[in-house]
């Protein structure tokens, strides 16, 4: 999308008819690297942290012009309603405080000074060892199309590491990375000159070859096929950090399904379904609900449907493309049919010639959905097998006896699960977290925060800053 209000700073700002060529991309990479050496490399961590935090503060102001463009144009480009977009942006920019940023560096690198000077935590110091971490000279990023904030988060990481950056945006969502880059350039044009953004249809070997040929580190977010394809073409001088697609689910224990608490739990569950319209890897596909509570799993599904209906008023899902809406419509019909079939079997076993041709699925199914739109759908299925949702606020609720039972059902997606959101009592949470960790989940969080990971979270179970740096160890001569 061409934004007339913004100056042409980046390749992505050029009108769509302006052709990108491999040499244009290569030249851009080279000048970013030159600018980085001159203007970014000498900066101190504390300065950069302050600058990022100050910028985030501006983004949180309701009248900040770039925020307003993001909410309007972003909703148009990405299909999120303005409140959904605002909630997602606020959650992200609220994280970018001085404390969180310094905490992130300390967590990942062991000491907050490690990007500025040789330093070490005390255990290493005792052995006379110091280390300095260096970010990539040119950090290239192939961004995913579904969610904008993971791209922004990596841009922040790149800044902290003093890396020049080349961001290949998804064609479907260039707007937020561009606006974020403009906000940085507005504060400090020299910083903006250490960034480049462009977008082209993925798989363009010539353009991607130019980009990878100039970078020393490439972060890819996308489908496994995209990751594989890029890895194959990557020169040996470039290191690859890949984040393939992951999925997530929720788990609700029986203890929190008392009459009063259940409503709150359902509200939090609804927030996770609605956040970024469920399009991220951290969004739940299924809620497994223990059948030991005073509210049965079906009852929880009903409560969740009420919460989603309320949320639709405050934070509408927004319009979908016909194919996305049709996918929901088709999936709904299928489950409605199963529900009708199940009811008729139970009402009058004689009317349906059972086993006449082949056995139809007979597990109980119930469907709750928005009237006259595809805005939200809750499907309760007694069949506990894990199911992937068609997303855009379409969620499954399934019963289970306990966590071990749920994990058995989720075995098909083991190794691909990012986050499990849990609603439980304090007493059980530790035991559950341990069980989930041993099963291979990379993040456990309370329900209601699934799409809202802290800045320093370990993406796909890997420390995100530490993953990007190169170290220089210095073993001091013993005195």
């Amino acid at each position, binding site marked *: 999308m061409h934004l007339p209000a913004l100056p042409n700073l980046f390749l992505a700002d050029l009108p769509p008819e302006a052709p990108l060529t491999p040499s244009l991309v290569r030249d851009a990479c080279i000048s970013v690297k030159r600018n980085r050496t001159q203007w970014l490399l000498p900066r101190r961590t504390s300065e950069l942290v302050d600058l990022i935090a100050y910028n985030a503060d501006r983004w949180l102001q309701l009248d900040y012009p770039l925020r307003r463009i993001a909410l309007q144009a972003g909703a148009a480009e990405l299909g999120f309603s303005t409140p959904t977009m605002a909630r997602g942006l606020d959650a992200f920019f609220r994280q970018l405080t001085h404390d969180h940023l310094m905490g992130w560096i300390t967590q990942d690198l062991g000491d907050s000074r490690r990007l500025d000077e040789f330093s070490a935590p005390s255990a290493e110091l005792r052995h006379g060892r110091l280390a300095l971490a260096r970010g990539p000279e040119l950090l290239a990023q192939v961004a995913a199309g579904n969610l904008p904030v993971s791209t922004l988060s990596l841009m922040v990481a790149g800044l902290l590491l003093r890396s020049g950056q080349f961001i290949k945006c998804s064609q479907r969502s260039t707007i937020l990375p561009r606006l974020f880059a403009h906000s940085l350039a507005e504060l400090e044009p020299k910083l903006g000159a250490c960034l480049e953004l462009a977008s082209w249809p993925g798989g363009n070997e010539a353009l991607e070859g130019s980009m990878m040929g100039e970078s020393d580190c490439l972060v890819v977010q996308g489908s496994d096929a995209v990751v594989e394809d890029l890895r194959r073409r990557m020169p040996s001088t470039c290191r690859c950090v890949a984040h393939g697609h992951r999925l997530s689910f929720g788990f609700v224990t029986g203890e929190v399904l008392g009459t009063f608490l259940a409503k709150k739990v359902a509200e939090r569950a609804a927030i996770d379904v609605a956040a970024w319209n469920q399009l991220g890897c951290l969004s739940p596909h299924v809620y497994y609900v223990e059948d030991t509570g005073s509210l049965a799993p079906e009852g929880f599904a009903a409560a969740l449907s009420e919460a989603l209906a309320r949320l639709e008023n405050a934070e509408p899902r927004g319009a979908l493309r*016909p194919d996305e809406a049709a996918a929901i419509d088709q999936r709904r019909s*299928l489950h409605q049919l199963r529900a009708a079939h199940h009811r*008729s079997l139970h009402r009058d076993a004689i009317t349906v010639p059972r086993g006449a041709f082949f056995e139809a699925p007979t597990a109980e199914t119930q469907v709750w959905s928005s009237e*006259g739109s595809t805005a939200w759908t809750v499907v309760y299925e007694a069949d506990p097998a894990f199911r992937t949702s068609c997303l855009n606020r379409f969620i499954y609720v399934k019963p289970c006896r306990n966590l071990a039972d749920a994990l058995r059902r989720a075995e098909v997606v083991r190794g691909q699960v990012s986050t499990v959101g849990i609603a439980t009592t304090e007493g059980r949470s530790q035991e559950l977290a341990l069980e989930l960790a041993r099963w291979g989940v990379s993040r456990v969080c309370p329900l209601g925060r699934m799409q809202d990971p802290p800045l320093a979270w370990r993406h796909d179970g890997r420390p995100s800053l530490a993953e990007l740096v190169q170290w220089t160890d210095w073993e001091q001569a013993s005195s």
Partner: protein
Amino acid sequence: MATSLVEFGAQIRSRIFAFAASGKADFFGDPGFDQLARSLFRLQFEANPAYRAWCESHGTNPDNLSCWQQIPLVPTEAFKEVDLTCFEPGAASTCFHSSGTTGHRPSRHWHSQQSLAIYEESLAGWFEPFLLKEEVQEEALELRESDGRWAILSLTPPPEVVPHSSLAYMIGTTIRRFGAKDSLFAGMLDSKGDWALDTDRLLFALRRSLCGNRPLILMGTAFNFVHFLDLAEQRNLRYRLAVGSRLMETGGYKGRSRVLSPEVLHSELSRRLGVPPSHIITEYGMCELSSQAYSHAVGGKPERHFRFPPWTRIRVLSPETGSDVEEDATGTLAVIDLANVWSVLGVQTGDLAIRHDNGFQLVGRIPQSEPRGCSLLTV
């Protein structure tokens, strides 16, 4: 009004037959269609328990139905789930399955001799005006068999080898009805059970038609034709089929060959076989229906605006609201098919289409609901 499905079936058959004979579709004008559709709905509601359960869940029954547009539509996916049939157990002899990738549960549409007779009438009644239309090609006319039958060459395996394929059955029917004695099936199953070309038979039939300068009707799926193109490339084959030859291509690829856009497929076929694009007709059909749509009549402009026969109606529905979309807008395609006598007449397809005044244009399949970029598992 028909009081039984047997009676209704006989009525529909005779009306389709009358249409085929006269080219007039008066019986299926709006009032006639509405009456027939409502009468068939009542009979199916009574005889088809799974459909009745579906209708009741929508609060629809024969007594509160006021026009055909209110007939509850069954998604094609439902044919994978339940038996949508009016037959008593044991009364159905044939079952058409949807094609799909291995491991997927197919749709099932049950048939008996009775329902197949209607299927055949429906198929022939619409096939003829679109595929067999004669142009003023005196030379070709003379060279065709004196009984007016056509040399038909199918790239699919024969129906006895693939008894669950409605397409093979359809082609078998056209050969029985319109085919010359030497019509043949040049498809087979390979060692993995996938459809493949029987190269010797295929090349034999092509060469025979060339030698005799007899026009040929070539029928098959899109991937069958891609297999042919691959063969032609490999052996450097290029033919100029006799004037008046025509192709009928149908269906998707299902991962069985490389995928070509319809434009590329047609222009390649045109180049390799010497058949003009006006003589390459695309068929749109599925095992859940008993009628087919065609992109254009042979010799006409290849517009790719599909049309179903007069004993059907199409609806293009907004997936958001479920109501009919405006002209030129995109939505889910649904077909109300009066020839689907023994199953359900209202079928909602898994395809997106653009509504036009004289038919519809296909946009594509509704994406199967997998998380973006992942193909971890399917429903």
